[in-house]
């Protein structure tokens, strides 16, 4: 409870806001929408369990990520965050292709300028993060995700702006 005012969670749930309310530090009463959207997607009970399972110093970040996911799910009820992930992975692939082309072009130019010096073929080592993304431990992204239009057309712009991840 912030002062004498119940937190946004307890206001929405219409209950007394205890001094040790797990929601109070992260859902202030002046932002009721924040808890409302998280409650709509995850449910207050599940959010409470998730927060209680985390150390206190990690709960703020957890709430922020839950709010982000809930917003993404509300904007795009079919794909949620997965739509953004798929789009970003495609961007990464395109950039890596462009980079490979550019690096090959550099080698070609260098070979033309110094034809007497044999240059080794470029060894394109896979990026470690690409390996993580392509061979993660859980199932890969649903194959039909091809950035096709979903039920909402607003999924793409916001998740791509890093500044908007934590609102």
């Amino acid at each position: 409870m912030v002062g004498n005012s119940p937190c946004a969670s307890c206001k929405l749930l219409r209950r007394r806001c205890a001094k040790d309310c797990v929601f109070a530090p992260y859902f202030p009463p002046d932002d009721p929408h924040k808890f409302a959207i998280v409650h709509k997607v995850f449910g207050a009970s599940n959010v409470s369990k998730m927060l209680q399972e985390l150390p206190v110093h990690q709960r703020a970040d957890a709430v922020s990520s839950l709010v982000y996911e809930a917003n993404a799910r509300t904007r795009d009820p079919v794909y949620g965050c997965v739509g953004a992930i798929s789009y970003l992975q495609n961007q990464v692939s395109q950039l890596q292709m462009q980079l490979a082309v550019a690096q090959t072009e550099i080698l070609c130019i260098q070979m033309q300028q110094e034809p007497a010096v044999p240059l080794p073929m470029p060894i394109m080592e896979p990026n470690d993060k690409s390996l993580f993304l392509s061979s993660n431990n859980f199932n890969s992204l649903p194959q039909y995700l091809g950035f096709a239009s979903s039920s909402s057309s607003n999924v793409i712009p916001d998740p791509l702006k890093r500044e908007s991840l934590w609102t």
Partner: protein
Amino acid sequence: MTRCAACKYLRRRCASDCIFSPYFPPNNPQRFACVHRIYGASNIGKMLQQLPVHRRAEAADCLYYEAQCRMKDPVYGCVGLITLLHQEIHDAQSQLAKAQAEIAFLNASSAQEEPPQQQQQQQHPAIEPAKQGGDPQYYVQQIEATGDGPSALYGPSTATWFC
């Protein structure tokens, strides 16, 4: 009639029009257990019911994916993956800008060394300009526009998460 994984988990009768049964078959109980733990059966049912039937399978798969991400990373869930991708894009753009700048430099050096009548033959169509433009300066501007690293999004307390 075999109950779906959801109704088995919830210990209830599986109706012929059960909202869960097409997407949570009985041979994969872990799938429903995972989404139920994160979202709850009621929320899953509501989300699916609000969608047209032909979109529900995709939605169920995406919910399962996000639930798995959340169970694997209880703090950031799939948002952690989004941040990693942003960083990877930033890094790739930076490397691409450097490569494009080097190409421009090499081409300029090559043009200065050769006679003027041969300069027209030095076009290299191998490089396709990026969709947004082939000017190396563009890429540098893109990098500057993307701002700081992921720690700027999460705050200083989480800056070490990406190490």
